[in-house]
């Protein structure tokens, strides 16, 4: 199999990778994202400021939940990001496992702590909301339990990819775990439809009109956009830092190797680095 592949691979390699590998070049990735990141961060801050102000100060209370309904503006975006981020992790894991995309490993590695954070925030705000409204901090219904499993998957991925001395091995194990855990995503989403739960069914993405009045729906959508931009900016900044870290490590390794093979000539060079 390998021999059959060898000639075309040795040929015009970049063309074969296609658009998928255009951003695989770390130098180009750093250049592009370096230009993008300030704009992304600024947009995130701006949209979040508008959304949070709208949600907290300029939107009506709910007719029976009162002011407590404002937890919605944090809880729902966090829940969407916890699930959407996991879909991203699964896609990144497929790219890493099948196409061996060099940046996909790093992106997955840097994504999971942020994913764990938003899932924890989703659980915490949900618990704070459940106590006054439902009368309990926590119940083991299908929705709450499957989100807790999602949280453990995020944490497990973050821990597993860092548990190996060989980073590539860790990344591969993490990708496999992420893909196994992907079966949980539809369970989270449809748990409220498949089984009866204490948690209510979806309000925004239901088949007929959204169950939220527009005065509550619009600030929610703005908050969701703002948190999504902030999530993207945070992950992008982490991936950039990881690429630079990897570069430094490679340079240090190369310098050390040079020092080993030419102890006489490399000594002054090592001092320069």
């Amino acid at each position, binding site marked *: *199999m*390998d021999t059959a*592949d060898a000639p075309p691979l040795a040929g015009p390699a970049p063309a074969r990778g296609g658009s998928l590998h255009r951003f695989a070049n770390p130098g180009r990735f750093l250049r592009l994202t370096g230009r993008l990141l300030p704009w992304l961060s600024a947009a995130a801050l701006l949209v979040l400021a508008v959304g949070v102000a709208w949600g907290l100060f300029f939107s*009506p*209370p*709910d*007719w*029976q*939940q009162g002011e407590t*309904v404002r937890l*919605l503006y944090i809880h729902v975006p966090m829940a969407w990001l916890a699930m959407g981020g996991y879909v991203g992790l699964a896609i990144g894991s*497929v790219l890493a*496992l*099948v*196409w061996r995309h060099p940046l996909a490993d790093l992106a997955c590695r840097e994504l999971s702590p942020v994913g764990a954070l938003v899932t924890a925030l989703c659980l915490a705000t949900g618990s704070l909301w459940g106590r*006054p*409204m*439902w*009368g*309990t901090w926590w*119940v*083991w*219904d*299908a929705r709450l339990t499957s989100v807790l499993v999602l949280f453990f998957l995020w944490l497990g991925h973050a821990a597993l990819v860092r548990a190996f001395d060989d980073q590539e091995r860790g990344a591969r194990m993490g990708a496999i775990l992420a*893909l*196994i855990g*992907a*079966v949980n995503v539809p*369970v989270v989403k449809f748990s409220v439809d*498949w*089984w*009866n*739960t*204490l948690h*209510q*069914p*979806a*309000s925004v993405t*239901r088949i*007929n*009109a*959204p*169950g*939220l*009045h*527009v*005065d*509550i*729906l619009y600030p929610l959508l703005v908050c969701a956009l703002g948190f999504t931009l902030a999530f993207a900016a945070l992950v992008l900044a982490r991936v950039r830092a990881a690429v630079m870290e990897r570069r430094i490590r490679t340079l240090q390794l190369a310098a050390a190797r040079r020092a080993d093979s030419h102890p006489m000539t490399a000594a002054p060079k090592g001092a320069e680095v």
Partner: protein
Amino acid sequence: MTKKRRRMWVLLLCGLGLGSATALTLTAFQDNLVFFRSPSDIAAAAPAPDRAFRLGGLVEAGSVQRETGADGRPTARFTVTDGAHAVHVTYTGVLPDLFREGQGVVTLGKLGPDGVFRASEVLARHDETYMPPEVADALKRSGHWNPSQGAAPPASSWNTLEPRRDGS
């Protein structure tokens, strides 16, 4: 077949296997994944009298009676219904803020030999609608909705109502 393509097929097959295994498991445990049982479930197959389970449904309009027991603790009697069947419930303790007639509730307790459900815990269940107080008032006043009778009318009929116009 290239290595890349082989990896893709292996991944697809694993995903297919894992997905069907999960689906089968979830289907097999269907009954255990249910958080509460409805009055119709109880009518179809009543659980053993000494077994605790959760009963869920809407609080029937006009069924709530509150009294204070000998020890000064509040006791509530109400009926939980799912439209087809209903179960009488008694509960001693403080009810959650959202508890009202027409609201969804989930109660934990045991079914007595007299068919009355003795709850040790009552949780309120919120539905998927959110609306400003002015809009709810407008709907109630216009006769489109009586919250004690059940869920709000279809959202498309109210989710763009101007609260100011109908409100104050």
